[in-house]
């Protein structure tokens, strides 16, 4: 679906993404992992058009640079890292904008199909009850789910999530990941997500890209990429030891 060839991003003299190439196939859930500053979010920004890049990004063989923003939005949905909202829009108004790329004219009303997608997104994210509430009154987690619902209403073939459970507590982390898993199974779509939690990456991902210092260290099936040995090199510590020592805190005497 999405293919990156020799993708590089530079800010002045600073190279933040250096010659990265990868392919993302159908029904895959690709986890982008790596330490801070590895260039994970930069990949997302390049795809969204928010960062100027060199190299080529192809969606189904078509160069993203040649597609109109609305065309891209019908294929690729992006949930950005954090979204601060300045005005008191309601949850529903924000989700409705997810259908923007499908609108025919500037004054055309919301179609029945649009409404179905909006209702489905509200249902999946569990926001139906607070649909008329202002986003300014929501908790960080609810706000994050509002934007997740917006991108689901967008009905993309490829969903890109930049740290989707950033503001969410454990329960919502679990329910969000389960929800995305259901969404992939139901729709046969693909997901790319930037994650910090390596356990989540291993539990839910089918494939992974391991990044370090702007370069791609490894890519492929999640079990082959996120190995104890590789993570040890990238993070400079034994990740398995650390995580198991954390878990051992739960062992009752």
């Amino acid at each position, binding site marked *: 679906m999405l293919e990156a060839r020799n993708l590089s991003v530079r800010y002045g003299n600073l190279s933040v993404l250096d010659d990265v190439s990868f392919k993302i196939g159908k029904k895959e859930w690709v986890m982008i992992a790596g330490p801070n500053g590895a260039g994970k979010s930069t990949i997302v920004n390049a795809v*969204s*058009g*928010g960062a*100027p890049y060199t190299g080529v990004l192809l969606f189904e063989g078509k160069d993203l640079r040649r597609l*109109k*923003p*609305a*065309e*891209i*939005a*019908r294929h690729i*949905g*992006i*949930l*950005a890292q954090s*979204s*601060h*909202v*300045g*005005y*008191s*829009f*309601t949850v529903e*108004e*924000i989700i*409705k*904008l*997810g259908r*923007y*790329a499908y*609108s025919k004219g*500037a*004054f055309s*009303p*919301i*179609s*029945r199909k649009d*409404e179905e997608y909006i209702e489905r997104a509200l249902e999946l994210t569990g926001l139906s009850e607070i649909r008329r509430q202002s986003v300014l009154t929501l908790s960080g987690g609810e706000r994050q789910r509002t*934007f997740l619902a*917006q*991108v689901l209403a*967008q009905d993309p073939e490829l969903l890109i999530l930049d740290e989707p459970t950033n503001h969410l507590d454990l329960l919502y982390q679990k329910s969000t990941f389960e929800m995305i898993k259901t969404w992939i199974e139901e729709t046969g779509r693909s997901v790319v997500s930037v994650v910090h939690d390596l356990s989540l990456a291993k539990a839910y991902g089918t494939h992974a890209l391991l990044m370090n210092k702007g370069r791609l260290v490894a890519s492929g099936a999640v079990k082959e990429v996120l190995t104890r040995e590789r993570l040890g090199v990238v993070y400079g510590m034994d990740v398995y030891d650390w995580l198991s020592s954390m878990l051992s805190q739960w062992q009752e005497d």
Partner: protein
Amino acid sequence: MKKREGFSPTVYILSSLVTLAVLLLCVSAGSVRVPLRDTVSIIWNSVLGLPIPEGMSKSIVFFVRLPRVICAGLIGASLSLCGAAMQGLLRNPLADGSTLGISSGASIGAVLALAFGFSIPGLSGGGVMLTAIIFAFASLMVILTLAYSLDFSLSTNTIILIGIVFSMFAGSIVSLVITFSDEHVKTVVFWLMGSLSGSSFLNALILLVTLAVCGTVILRFSRELNAFAIGEDNARNIGVNVRLVKQIVLVAVSALIGVTVSIGGTINFVGLVIPHMTRMVTGPNHKKLLPASMFSGAVFLMLADLFSRVILSPKELPIGVVTSFVGSITFVYIFYSSRRGRG
């Protein structure tokens, strides 16, 4: 069932009626009071070309007050619409035509024309209008060129910062022009404070056409403005052509501001306060906010103009003084209460 996000026709009809009522009130009131019934019959008969009943002052109602009140309404609607659009586009409740630097740019042109007596033969005030529009566009070009060269994505902070710097620069040029304008000082200063006296039907027609064209363009982008108001990155992610929309809206806003400044002078705070207050009633959705701001801006400026005419009658206050006075106090109140409300 298809649902619309904007107002129902009933709301539009009601708003139009209220606006019309305020217009009639403002025409009939003034240093010479003309009863409301006479006002209506004078306007009605003049429009239809019928003779005016004896003893009625046609000239003051039809040729002096009516065009002036219409101009006030149209300028109020334009400034308020521009402010609402800018506040959404730049996701900044403090944005307004003056934040962008357009009104200060336009005022350089107008002040130059006034100070050096530049005029177009056969068209009174034509010189001021022409130079104001030219300078409004020129300022927009300068501001956008500077913004692009600094920051290709035209981020909102860059625009606001450049707008403020540009306004200061324009202010210094205006002061410089005043220093050299000897006998015209009084005209220039009075114009700078904003004045609607001497408005003609031609002015009203020019304002109406500009508002119709630029207003349609801006209203067409209601949904995109919603996306911008939520966040520029979000707008890009849902498929809005961020750069194109920003350019079109900014050009429409600057054309509209250029024309209003040339006719009414710099009238501050309308574009800032009216959309702000309107948003408290309609919510931030631009499908409602933009048309509602136009109506409330029109009503506000017609009343402000009436106030400026009658408070020290027969002397007249510059309308800019009234709007700045009322506007700044209202703004501080809104700002203070919203901050306190947030805790």
